[in-house]
């Protein structure tokens, strides 16, 4: 399987009144074609920022370093106009809140059609045809009637489908879905996830699913990457992650999930607070809350292959210790 997307040492910082905020720190990972990759972490861990950096949608105050290779192209070097042409065409993004993702004054069908005309040389009638087809594909009943509706006439679930329809209009190779189901009811959630899964099956679309919901991850992801405070701490196939999480943060995250065996009234929480990204702790950013913290944790642990498919960035791991030795080149992630 070929690598569709490869990140190397991606770093994103923002210039703010309070100094430089390091939102993403030295993240390297790769995603294969046709894979559904889950990017997990709590709010503020940098996963959305990372996705926005890929798309080139960060504000001017952001500074992005590193390398992002997509289908052989170096995205961070592309001039803005070239990047724009990729967006909506070969890479699409789905935002979290369907209630605010659509232009309130524009008919929903038109919003789908304009994605098509922006990137393909077709006339309006053809675009409309295709848009209608897409509305049907994402499960909008009576697409003809709904085409001219303004967004406020549609429910949240419907709007999210419109958003998905626009994202898929030009059959992108990569879809970045940022919390696509968080704002929706559970039943609608399931339908949306089915849609995404169907996409991958039919069109070999690669999906990066950003979420903080481990349940969603369990349902549809192939592999999972775990982020904490801007750092990528663990990457593994989904079954592995649930069965044997290696990184202390991942372990704590999974332990915090309420289970049936638990004594009522006891919730396992992770003590401590998320670090201030304007002044992050040196080295591993989880070190301030980690039950196994050691002195060496003040140096950033490199991400290394514990097994062929399981990567971890923690000084507890032999692989990391190996990779951290001076005679090794800085470890990057490989699939």
């Amino acid at each position, binding site marked *: 399987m070929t690598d569709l997307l490869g990140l190397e040492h991606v770093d994103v910082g923002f210039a703010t009144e309070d100094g430089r905020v390091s939102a993403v720190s030295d993240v390297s990972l790769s995603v294969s074609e046709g894979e559904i990759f889950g990017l997990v972490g709590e709010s503020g861990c940098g996963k959305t920022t990372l996705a926005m950096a890929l*798309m080139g*949608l960060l504000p001017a105050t952001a500074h992005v370093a590193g390398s992002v290779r997509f289908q052989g192209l170096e995205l961070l070097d592309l001039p803005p106009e070239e990047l*724009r*042409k*990729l*967006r*909506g*065409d070969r890479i*699409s*993004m789905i*935002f979290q*809140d369907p209630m*605010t*993702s*659509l*232009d*309130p*004054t*524009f008919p929903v069908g038109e919003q789908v059609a*304009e*994605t098509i005309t*922006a*990137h393909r040389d077709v006339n309006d009638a053809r675009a409309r045809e295709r848009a209608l087809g897409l509305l049907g594909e994402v499960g909008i009943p009576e697409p003809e009637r709904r085409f001219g509706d*303004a967004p*406020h006439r549609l429910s949240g679930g419907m709007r999210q489908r419109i*958003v998905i329809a*626009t*994202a898929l209009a030009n059959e992108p190779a990569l879809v970045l879905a940022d919390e696509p189901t968080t704002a929706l009811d559970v039943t609608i959630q399931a339908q949306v996830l089915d849609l995404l899964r169907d996409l991958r099956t039919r069109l070999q679309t690669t999906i990066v699913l950003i979420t903080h919901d481990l349940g969603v991850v369990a349902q549809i992801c192939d592999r999972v990457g775990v982020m904490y405070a801007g750092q990528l701490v663990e990457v593994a196939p989904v079954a592995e992650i649930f069965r044997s999480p290696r990184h202390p943060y991942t372990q704590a995250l999974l332990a915090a999930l309420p289970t049936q065996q638990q004594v009522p009234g006891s919730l396992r929480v992770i003590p401590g607070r998320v670090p201030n990204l304007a002044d992050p702790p040196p080295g591993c950013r989880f070190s301030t809350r980690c039950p196994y913290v050691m002195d060496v944790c003040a140096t950033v642990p490199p991400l290394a292959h514990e097994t062929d498919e399981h990567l971890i960035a923690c000084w507890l791991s032999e692989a990391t210790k190996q990779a951290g030795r001076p005679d090794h080149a800085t470890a990057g992630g490989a699939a």
Partner: protein
Amino acid sequence: MSPRARYVVRRLLLAIPVIVAMSIFVFLMIHLVPGDPVQTMLGFRATPENVSTVRAQLGLDRPLLAQYLTWAGGLLHGNFGQDFISHTPVSTLLAQRLPVTIELTLLSMTLAVAVGVPLGVRAAARPGAVRQATEGFVVAGIAITDFWLGIMLVLLFAGIWQVLPPSGYVPFLKDPVANLRYLILPVLALAFGEAAYILRTTRGAMEEVLGTQYILFLRAKGIAERRIVYRHALRNAAPPIVTVIGIQFGVLLGGAIVIESLFALPGVGRLIVTSIQQRNYVVVQGGVLVVAVLFILVTLATDLVVGWLDPRTEEGAAT
């Protein structure tokens, strides 16, 4: 009836009580004058006979309600009373003066919008050099008093360079070129401040819209920035911009009083002012009422346009 039509009708009906209340206020004006209005009108030389004659003429000796109803009835027939000095029907005076004020307002607002909106959009969409320049313009436009600017313009163009007349007026139909020559300076004086205000409103509304999620999503879809700004952002930013334009239009209709006086333009504003100085209350009443009603109608029209622009109003969401 469709929800939208219902909305329109409802707004129209709401305007009626406002107009009626306005007419009551205007009607009461003459009665609120301290002392005897007729005495004041006629001045010192009035004899008691004159006073009672005029009072009877104006119907001021009848009960208040009867007076109001007669007056209101007269209004509906187009009878605004008579200028007691020249005995010209007030409606004639108004018919002569209104077009002047309207032309002044129309030209000024058109210029202000033509300058203010595009600059405001540009300043919001492309912060940088444009924004700095517009910032200065906005500050100057808001701080500088319009009639002072008018006087300065007169100093420059009529006093020093002598290329334009300092005051006066010729109807458009009689001599379009001269008409415009007389109007350039007053229009510039008014438009400067209005353009600054409209620019600021446009810039603010656009900035707010450009920060929304749906604009971000449009960028994520790879839509060209130009299209985003003009077909999406502007459409969404339009309501407050149009509202301000509408209100300012109404304000100019009634508020260009000073400019009209300054440039000796025979408009309604100037009529009202001179009538006040002459204690010509009947004319003042007519003038104020007409301008007030126009203002209410313009505000109403603006509301309707804004409602039409935003599809959400159908549901009765917007007031």
